């Protein structure tokens, strides 16, 4: 029973992380790639960490505190890292892809040349 739950959590997490990798490979510009990486790999890594927490708790009978710290840390720092990368990319003037991209931030902060 525990093994089935751990297997389902691992499969969900790995599916999200590999989706993030495919998004980083396939999407057209840096902002879309940071979007795919920051959202999807955070959720996937949380799910894999939860699988490890469930597995080691069921096997040993004690809660692994360091894995709880990892889950909390990733939950806070994944979106922060993606946001800082996207902000830096905007300020050095990385162009968006051709198509339906809308630059709503240009009214407030013009990008540096």
């Amino acid at each position: 029973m525990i093994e089935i739950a751990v297997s389902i959590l691992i499969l969900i997490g790995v599916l999200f992380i590999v989706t993030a990798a495919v998004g980083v490979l396939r999407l057209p510009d840096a902002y879309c790639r940071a979007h795919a990486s920051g959202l999807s790999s955070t959720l996937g890594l949380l799910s894999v960490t939860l699988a490890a927490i469930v597995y080691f708790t069921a096997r040993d009978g004690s809660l692994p505190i360091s894995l709880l710290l990892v889950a909390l840390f990733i939950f806070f720092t994944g979106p922060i890292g993606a946001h800082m990368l996207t902000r830096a990319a905007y300020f050095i003037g990385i162009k968006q892809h051709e198509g339906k991209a809308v630059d709503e931030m240009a009214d407030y902060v013009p990008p540096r040349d």
Partner: protein
Amino acid sequence: MELVVNIALTLLGFGALLCFYRVVKGPTIPDRAVGVDTLMMHVVAIILLLGIKGETRIYMDAVISIAILSFVGTTGFAKFIAKGVIIDRDRS
């Protein structure tokens, strides 16, 4: 569960190859930084799955230190490509 962990490790290795292609190819610097960030996520997940596969808890401290190093590296890289320096003194 052994089969599921093996399949998951295979998929993660494939995804790490995709991210490594983006790191090598990426046209601009933020593309490479995003690729390195996603690659570090893959590394953390691979080490967690190796700990489950080997039924040991000694990898979990390595996991927390690699997660912290990943965040520090991403933040430092973002500061570097925004201003050219990592530690600045202009308090803006």
